[in-house]
């Protein structure tokens, strides 16, 4: 069949499908009656209280990971603090981790004045890397979750004590890889935090089949990735991943991720599938690899080799 046939046939697409695609925003404004508004508000409050109490434990563990565990486990990239001229706003980096394709940074905002934090809309909000030549390199994919007192319904991590707002900022590179980068940079409201990442990339755990064959899959404490060429069928795109615990039991794992086509310097095209572990609303999870021996992808178990 000539591709023109597909193009011609698409002129007979159903109108509602075209309208749906043309819609400028995917979010429609919904008008609630006052009674429904009250009900929604109550439900939101209840959910917030439950979520916050649940999240506190996880976030405290996450924070302590950065604050106290870096001597045992080396990925703490840096902590830093910057402030504006009048010291009205302090932006503090509470921790950062990176593997070869992904990074997470936790950033706290401490303000003397009441202030509304708006995530992406915050003035001068940017996350990028600086390569070893000092050039800025933007991430291919970026997300941020925010705890805000005025808007607790954001994709949230729990606020770190003494901060007015805490951001979890994540970025992923398809290519080039993080190992070619010198530092991560987070900018907001004219302030700039830098994290040295060179020599601080998390350890990697290549996965093998039961027979010891190489697979190309690589597990890290923050995620899983694989590079492959486009002439291989869609076998590395998966919807579900299980971790294999020390007893070999499969544990369902939340993750967020994407796969993308990346063009290499030699002109060839590769697909890079990058997934970062997540745990519900906290959005990222850093695994203690001592607790796992591998992963189940599709129906197949893969294992990493632990160096002792």
């Amino acid at each position, binding site marked *: *069949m*000539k591709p023109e046939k597909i193009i*011609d046939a698409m002129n*007979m697409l159903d109108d509602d499908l075209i309208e749906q*695609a043309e819609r400028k925003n995917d979010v429609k404004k919904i008008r609630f009656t006052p009674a429904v508004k009250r009900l929604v508000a109550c439900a939101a409050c209840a959910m917030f209280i439950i979520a916050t109490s649940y999240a506190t434990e996880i976030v405290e563990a996450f924070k302590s990971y950065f604050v106290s565990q870096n001597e045992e486990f080396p990925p703490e990239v840096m902590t830093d603090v910057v402030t504006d001229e009048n010291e009205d706003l302090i932006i503090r980096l509470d921790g950062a981790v990176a593997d070869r394709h992904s990074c997470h940074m936790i950033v706290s905002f401490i303000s003397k004045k009441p202030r509304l934090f708006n995530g992406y809309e915050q003035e001068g909000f940017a996350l990028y890397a600086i390569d070893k030549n000092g050039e800025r390199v933007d991430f291919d994919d970026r997300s941020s979750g925010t705890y805000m007192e005025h808007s607790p319904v954001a994709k949230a991590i729990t606020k770190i004590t003494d901060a007015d707002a805490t951001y979890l900022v994540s970025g992923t590179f398809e290519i080039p890889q993080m190992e070619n980068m010198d530092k991560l940079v987070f900018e907001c409201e004219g302030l700039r935090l830098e994290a040295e990442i060179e020599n601080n990339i998390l350890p990697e755990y290549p996965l093998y089949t039961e027979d010891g064959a190489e697979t190309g899959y690589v597990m890290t404490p923050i995620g899983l990735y694989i590079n492959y060429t486009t002439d291989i069928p869609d076998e590395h795109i998966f919807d579900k991943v299980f971790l294999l615990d020390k007893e070999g039991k499969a544990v369902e794992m939340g993750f967020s991720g994407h796969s993308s086509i990346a063009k290499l310097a030699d002109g060839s095209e590769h697909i890079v599938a990058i997934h970062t572990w997540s745990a519900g609303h906290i959005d990222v999870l850093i695994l203690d690899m001592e607790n796992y021996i591998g992963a189940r992808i599709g129906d197949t178990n893969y294992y990493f080799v632990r160096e002792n």
Partner: protein
Amino acid sequence: MEDEKIIDLYWQRDENAIKLTAEKYRNYCGAIARNILGNGEDAEECLNDTWLRVWNAIPPHRPDKLSLFLGKITRELAINRYKANSAQKRGGGEMELALDELSAFISSKNTVEENIEAETLAKAINVFLRKQPEKQANMFILRYFHFYPISQIAAKYSASESKVKSVLFRMRKKLYSYLESEDLL
């Protein structure tokens, strides 16, 4: 002016209908024509052809949605013009790229019934798109119905261009598999 009133003017054979249509939908139809033809002069002529076609089509037609009616006419006329231009090596715009993208999967198999009715194929594509997640389906439609450049789709969805390419790549593969399962490939 509301679409309903513009359509009434067509039915009354009032030539102001053309002027009002052009005023209201020049940008919308112009974008479709330019995406396909990538040539200012051709796109402009295509728009004039659209207004004339609509004048001849209403009545007897009374479209439910004037914008979509115009969009489909513009698209069809622009594609026809593109085909004529291609014969004279005057191609251009996103149409050429879109055809290249589709041909990677579609034309590689020669077991295809060339005589499949466009209507049958369209029906299958509609069913396929309804089975896909909304965002992916929208990206596919914006690319292969409206011929939006990848960069515009990426901007609309706040995604990287490579992510959009990845979605389209997978959608094309899925469509190919679906059409094959329906014996249309």
